[in-house]
């Protein structure tokens, strides 16, 4: 689109924002209702986390964080994310390349399958791994023979987390790659670039922001997953408690300050995720203008 047409389009939208719209008092009323609703449902709980975390002072806050069990929960959470996220990153790229660059029978079915983990309740997501690898599970004889434990062990937590966070990278990449089309890649091929060259020199730079956001989202979910992990974990303190499970334990012991202190770490992660998303969207809107 030429700049002229773009600015004409902008002018058109601006018109709608001005005169052929609701009167300003009505607008202010609607805006107020929306903002009050957002505050009550979203903002107040977020504030609550930090307020309660620091309620008894900074010392108590840091003491709660440096507790042995908290530290082991942090370690386990990082360990889980360090495996689940790279796996789903590779899967996401592979699936997006397949779906956005080729047409083949079953493509739509595949796209739906990638969304499956989102449609399944986290409790059920955890349950299926118990059914497979648990005491009376289908594959229990095999893993017992191999001498490994999956359920009530970190391995199960990693599996459940990988399942739950599987769609995130792919779902970010597919729409972006579909919209960009394959023209640039075809151009690179006609100029003599090999497949890998094309991917690393052309495709990757074009999708890097969406990829980054997908990874951040995937990571946030991997570190924060509660339901699925809760089923397979067994809640063994110091061994199989991730951060969200540790929060539950602390909360149920009425150790509210510690629970919120640990929560504040995850809330911070959430805020970073939101900022990252805003940055990515800003990058794309800049790139398209």
């Amino acid at each position: 689109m030429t700049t002229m047409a773009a600015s004409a389009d902008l002018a058109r939208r601006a018109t709608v924002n001005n005169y052929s719209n609701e009167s300003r008092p009505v607008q202010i009323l609607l805006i107020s209702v929306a903002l009050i609703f957002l505050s009550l449902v979203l903002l107040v709980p977020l504030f609550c986390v930090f307020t309660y975390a620091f309620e008894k002072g900074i010392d108590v806050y840091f003491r709660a964080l440096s507790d042995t069990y908290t530290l082991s929960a942090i370690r386990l959470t990082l360990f889980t994310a360090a495996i689940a996220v790279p796996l789903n990153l590779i899967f996401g790229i592979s699936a997006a390349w397949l779906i956005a660059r080729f047409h083949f029978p079953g493509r739509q079915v595949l796209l739906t399958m990638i969304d499956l983990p989102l449609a399944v309740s986290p409790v059920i997501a955890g349950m299926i791994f118990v059914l497979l690898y648990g005491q009376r599970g289908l594959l229990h004889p095999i893993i017992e023979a191999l001498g490994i434990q999956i359920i009530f062990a970190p391995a199960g937590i990693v599996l459940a987390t990988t399942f739950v966070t599987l769609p995130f990278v792919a779902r970010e990449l597919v729409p972006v790659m579909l919209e960009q089309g394959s023209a640039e890649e075809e151009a690179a091929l006609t100029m003599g670039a090999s497949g890998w060259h094309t991917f690393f020199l052309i495709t990757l730079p074009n999708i890097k922001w969406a990829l980054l956001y997908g990874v951040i989202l995937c990571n946030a979910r991997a570190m924060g997953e509660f339901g699925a992990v809760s089923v397979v974990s067994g809640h063994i303190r110091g061994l199989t408690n991730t951060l969200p499970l540790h929060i539950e334990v602390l909360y149920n012991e009425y150790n509210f300050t510690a629970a919120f202190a640990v929560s504040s770490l995850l809330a911070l992660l959430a805020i970073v995720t939101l900022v990252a998303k805003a940055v990515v969207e800003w990058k794309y809107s800049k790139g398209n203008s």
Partner: protein
Amino acid sequence: MVTRIQTKRALPGFGLSLGFTVLYLSLLVLIPLATIFLKVSTLSFGEFWQIATTPRVLAAYRLSFGASLAAAFINLFFGFLVAWVLVRYRFPCKRMADALIDLPFALPTAVAGISLTTVYSSNGWLGSWLERVGVKVAYTPLGICLALVFIGLPFVVRTMQPVLEELEPELEEAAACMGAGRGQIFFRVLLPGLWPSLLTGFSLAFARGLGEYGSIVFIAGNLPFSTEIVPLLIMTKLDQFDYKGATALALVMLLASFTLMLLINSLSHLAGKKSHRAEV
């Protein structure tokens, strides 16, 4: 005549990406999910029916479906309002409000659960205030509904935003030229075209609410027959090593989610979009 029938693809990597994607999906998603069906198939239909329809389970269904529906309706209204305000009006902190919408996607459900409970319990910031007018939120079905509103809000807002952005200004201008007032324009010109997307957002929020566990388990009282949701009941059965019972309930929930997913897919087809863009 036809010397060679083949569909060679110019871009490389079809075989590799197809192989890896399908293998990964099968190992991690398809085979594990299939075990549910395998497990249920060991039950006779009578057994299945008996497990899936005990009074306690029925009460849990009622609560899960009822609270999810109520929350989805609340989100339909407020979510649409928020999306409308964000797309069409200018006001301070708009960008921040917009970014905040995704908070339920990003904030771990356990954190959301404990903070909502604290805020809305009878001695919390808002709960104590509500208690004075006789409304109890935490540990009641209302609390469950609140948690589900929190969880489902972004689905409606993020489904509606792009659709509202794409509304052609000419539609309203034409209607205004033909003499329609604002109310008429909204209800007769705009709203009829928005139904598929509204329904998509509603179903997404509803589907998510059905399966939600983390945020509810704290704010619900978890009392059988009154504040026990289906995912919690499944969890309880698992803890008691009642795998048959758990799988039977899981199957019911799974079928409900698949039906909703089918509905959502056909709806977004109807709305003429490639895929719904709401992120989870």
